[in-house]
Structure formats: structure tokens, C-alpha cells
């Protein structure tokens, strides 16, 4: 797994693997191991292609409230979701209240809620801005948030007001230390 930590590895692979590794969940760790092996077994061309798409993403950042944000390369938009740690703590998600498009929010505002095991939990935005898209997959299949909270189970896309806000958040390594406490 040493190669994963190296910065020369294509960006998306390193981010995903790091963030997944940071989770205590054994399934996630297994998935991370599998994922980190994938690019090596692919032919070089496919590798190049995946590098191009992944290069538009910056490193994922995490909040104390276990939400993550992944900014696009230009820092103008970002994807918001909840961490593996949070998804595991919540238990089986049965409903996701998604934010309305065009909703203006400041960091820490509620952008929706998930229901699991008779609990309604608020989801907060890590960053200020305007919601531009909600993940409709979650409306039909709320369990996606348990299966892949840090990829397919993203909650909303946001037009970022100030990308600098993201820099104050934890990176994957710090978040891992935070959740280990």
C-alpha cells in the first residue's frame, strides 16, 4: 500500500484509496485495497484516460461533522457527501431529504436530512455557496449512501462561494486521526 501514499499515483486513485483507508470499516478497507490495485492491472491507455477525468478533482476535505467536499480543479464547484464513518454510524438509511436546487447556504447550514433507524439526522454543508444539483439516485435508492457514501452516494453539488473555506477543513489523513480518537 506504500505506493498509494505517493503523490505520483494518479490523483483520483490516491484520493479514493486514502479516504477509504481512513475508515475503520473492514469492507471499505477491502474496497480500497481492490481499488488501489485496479489501475495497475489496466492497460496504459485506460490509465491515461482515467487520469484525465480524475485530474479535474482536488483532494477531498472533511468536517468535524463527518461531511466531505470534493472541489473541481477550478474550485468553482464541489460535491458534498457524508463520510464512511458517518454512514456506518447512522445505520441503514431509509430516506434522504435532498436540498432544493438554487438554495443559498453558508457553511454549517443544513442542506437536508437522512433518516435511519428512527433517527432524523441533519446534513450540513461544509462550505458556503449555492446548491446546483441534488443526487436523485438517493431519492429512489437511499441505501446507496450506505454502500458508497464517498462516491455514488454524494448528496449535492454546490457552486462554491469561497474555495478558501475548504482549505480550513481536514484532509483525509487528519480526518482519519480525528475519527480514530
Amino acid at each position, binding site marked *: 500500500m506504500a505506493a498509494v501514499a505517493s503523490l505520483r499515483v494518479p490523483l483520483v486513485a490516491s484520493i479514493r484509496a486514502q479516504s477509504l483507508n481512513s475508515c475503520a470499516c473492514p469492507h471499505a478497507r477491502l474496497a480500497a485495497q481492490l481499488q488501489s490495485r485496479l489501475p495497475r492491472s489496466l492497460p496504459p491507455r485506460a490509465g491515461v484516460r482515467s487520469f484525465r477525468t480524475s485530474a479535474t478533482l482536488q483532494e477531498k476535505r472533511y468536517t468535524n461533522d463527518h461531511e466531505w467536499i470534493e472541489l473541481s480543479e477550478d474550485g468553482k464547484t464541489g460535491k458534498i457527501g457524508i463520510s464512511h464513518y458517518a454512514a456506518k454510524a447512522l445505520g441503514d438509511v431509509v*430516506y434522504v431529504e435532498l436540498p432544493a436546487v438554487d438554495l443559498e447556504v453558508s457553511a*454549517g447550514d443544513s442542506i437536508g436530512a437522512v433518516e435511519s*433507524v*428512527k*433517527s*432524523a*439526522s*441533519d446534513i*450540513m454543508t461544509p462550505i458556503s455557496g449555492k446548491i446546483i444539483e441534488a443526487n436523485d439516485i438517493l*431519492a429512489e435508492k437511499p441505501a446507496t449512501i450506505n454502500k458508497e457514501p464517498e462516491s455514488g452516494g454524494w448528496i449535492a453539488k454546490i457552486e462554491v462561494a469561497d474555495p478558501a473555506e475548504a482549505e480550513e477543513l481536514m484532509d483525509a489523513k487528519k480526518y482519519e486521526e480525528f475519527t480514530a480518537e
Partner: protein
Amino acid sequence: MPPHRNVASSSYRTRWKELVGISKHQIYISHSHNPFLNLSIEHYLLQKSSPDSTVLFLYRNAPCIVIGRNQNPWLEVNFEEVQRLRRLEVAPGDTAAASALASERWKDISLVRRRSGGGAVVHDLDNVNFSVICPPKDFTRDKHSEIVTQAIRELNPRARVNARHDIVLDQGDLLAKQNWPDPKDMHRSMFEPEGPNGPPLKVSGSAYKLTRQRALHHGTCLLTCRELPRISQLLHSPARPFIQARGVESVRSPVGNISNDLTAGTSVRQTFERELIKAFVIAHGIKNEAYSNFGSTHWTSESEELVTRYVGEELYRIQEIREGESELRSKKWLYGQTPQFILSSHPTEEDSTARPRWRWPEGLPPSARVYLKAKSGTIISTRISISRYDQVAQVEADRIDRNLKDRNIHDVRDFLPLLTIGYDAPELSQSSPGSRRGIPSPGKYKKSWGMMSHTASWLNTMLGKPGQPWRTGYGHSNYLR
């Protein structure tokens, strides 16, 4: 006398608001029976109480049905029964006196949507609700169920916490002494779970709300409810077989009372409240005066260490509580929060389960179809027709869809006008098969009209409201206004 007493006397409300924000332990009992106010006070405490404080709030509600945050009222609530109670109709079998008493208490039954998750429940004054607000780090779903179980065991040793974090009464025989669990074990009682009377009975159900800084656990406790069958009746919606909904469906459980002495409501309640406060005080290391003074005039305390007091209607004067109360009452919250759903008279691609035929009104031809999709309580698309001829059905469906689309279900008093507006428009008359020169014969017209009326009446039953009677006598002058 501590210095803050002076402040309290000068402005009692300001002092209370201040104490909520700083006091470490807070215990409140509400004198109000208004479910909207009690839930609003609870929400205020959730948002404003000091982040590291622990709060216990006890309240009782006048008869009401409380659904979970992400539930569908039409799927959970039997509105026919609600309306019957509201019209003061006497249930068959009730003795006159009992029914008069019961109706008096149940005629103002309200529908409430709470902010926490979970399923639908019915409250009345013989049910005590507890609510605990604490920092998320102290929160587990079982922790306070166990504390409440301790209090219930003072009244009934059969109580235990089950796998759903609810509290049930085991119904079986007493176990042999060597098999008795540790008395501190709240997950097992000294009794066999099942007995000749059936499986364990649920006496308390829980729901939770988690915010950035705080965790709320609240639940019901059925102490001496005299109308248990009514609970089940009110929660059986006739629309259940026809609705496919996103969101959260209730899990049905047989319910029971904590005390068998249904006539001793007040003393049972006082014992329970005292025991619950005692268990809470011990579990959180609070000064025992919070418990020992309970019931006396010395109980009220207002310090930064401990606040204990009765609350009620006077809290309307606090703006957030007043606004929270009206928000909970609003149709926007009550119905607009409903997750997307489809009401369909027949199996569809999305929902292929068979429909019970006996629910379908008599007098409708087998060709009749109702399909209605709604999001946030607003109708987004429909396909409603009665004709067996595709072309006619299409015309009917298009016309009705124009009338229904974008309407809020909760604003529709009666579906009949909406199904029949434009009914005698030329488009339909001309394409109606079997008619000569495009004009339907009066006989046919009357028959289809009747069918529309049946369809409307079915929709009125399926998508009922608590407010107005749905079984109105249809007359032309009434609905075409």
C-alpha cells in the same frame, strides 16, 4: 439568596431563556396538552440548550395522531375514523356514557408531524411522553430507553428494551429463580417473552433527532390508556394497499398498558413521573433534590447547576416557540413534507402488488383506472379514466389531468368537481362511441356521471383530510360553483 434571583423576578422570561443556554441539567414538565406547543418547546430546548447540558422534558398531549418526519399521512392515518370522531359519531358497542366521555375527549383529535424520524403513534392524556436532549457523544439509542425502563419497572416488572429500542412487556410466565437476569439488565425481564396472551406488548416507542451539536431521544409511555383498540383503528389507512410511497413506513406492533389499573390514571402517572425523574437524576449524577422535592412546592429550582420547573402556555411569549408552533401546524409542514408517492387503483410498473378487489367501489366498470403521482403533497401527474375505449379514456384522462395537476391534495375539499369540470365538453361528446351524431344519449350520460361520482368518492376516501366530512351528498348546485 443567590444574586440571579433578582434578575429572575425582574424579567422571568429573559432569565429562563438565559438559563436554558447555560444550565447543566434541566428538567421540565409541561402543563400544556397542545401537541404543537409541546413539540415546539422541545425543539426550542434542542436548539437553545447549552451544548454540554442534559435535558429531560415530560409532556402529555390531548388526543392526536403523530406521524414521523418522513411519513405519508394518507398511508398511515385512517381519516374516515378521524372524521367520524370529529363529527361526534358514537362507535357501535359503546355504552352511551362511555362514548359521550370518549367523544368529548377525541372530537378535537389533531394530526401532527414531528421533526424526528420513525413511525406513526397515537397520543392521549393517559400517555406520558419523555424527551431527553444530550450531547451526541453521550448518545446511544438504548441509553435512555434503559433509564425509562428502570422507571417503568417500578410499576411493572415485565418491562424490557427490545431490539428496536422500544419498551415492551413480556407476556409469559415467571422464569425459574435461577434463570432471573441481573436486575440491572434492562434487555431481559424475569418473564418468558411470549405467553398464552401472545407476544410481548409494546408500551413505549422511541424516535430520534440528531443535529450538529445535540441528540434528541423522545418516546411515548402508555400508562393507563382506556382506548387501545382506537389506536389501531386510527392507524389503519384504507389507502395502504393502493399507495406506493418513498419515505418511512410504520412497523406495526401490538400495544399494551404499563398499569392494569386503568381507573388510577393520575396516581399511576405521578408515580411514573417521579420514578423517571429519579432514574434520570441517578444516571446523570444530578443533585437528588431534583427528585426528592418532586411533587412539593420546593421542586422548582433555577440555578446554573440545575433547572427544574413546570412550563406551559406562557412560553407562547417566546418568539421562537410561537413561530415553531405555527410551523408545525402549517399545511406546508404537515402535508408538504410528504415524500413522493403513487396512488393507483391497479398494479403498475412501479408497484406490481395485487389490489384487494373489495376496496374498489361498486358501480365502477372494470375498465376504470386511477393513477395519481404526488410530490411534496402536490399532484404532479394523473391518469384517471373510466371508459373502456382507449380514445375516450385518453380524452377523459387528459381533461382530468389538466384539472388536477399542480393542486395540493390537502387543498382539494372534494374530487368530484375536479373530475367533472368540462365533462360535457364537445371533445368527449363527439368521440363517445355508441352515440349518434356525437351527442351521448341521456341514459349513457347519467351512467358515466354516476361512475365519475364513484371515482371521486373513492379518491376522497383514499386521500382524506381530517377537516371536513368526505361523505357529502353530491348535488349539482353544490359542486359546480
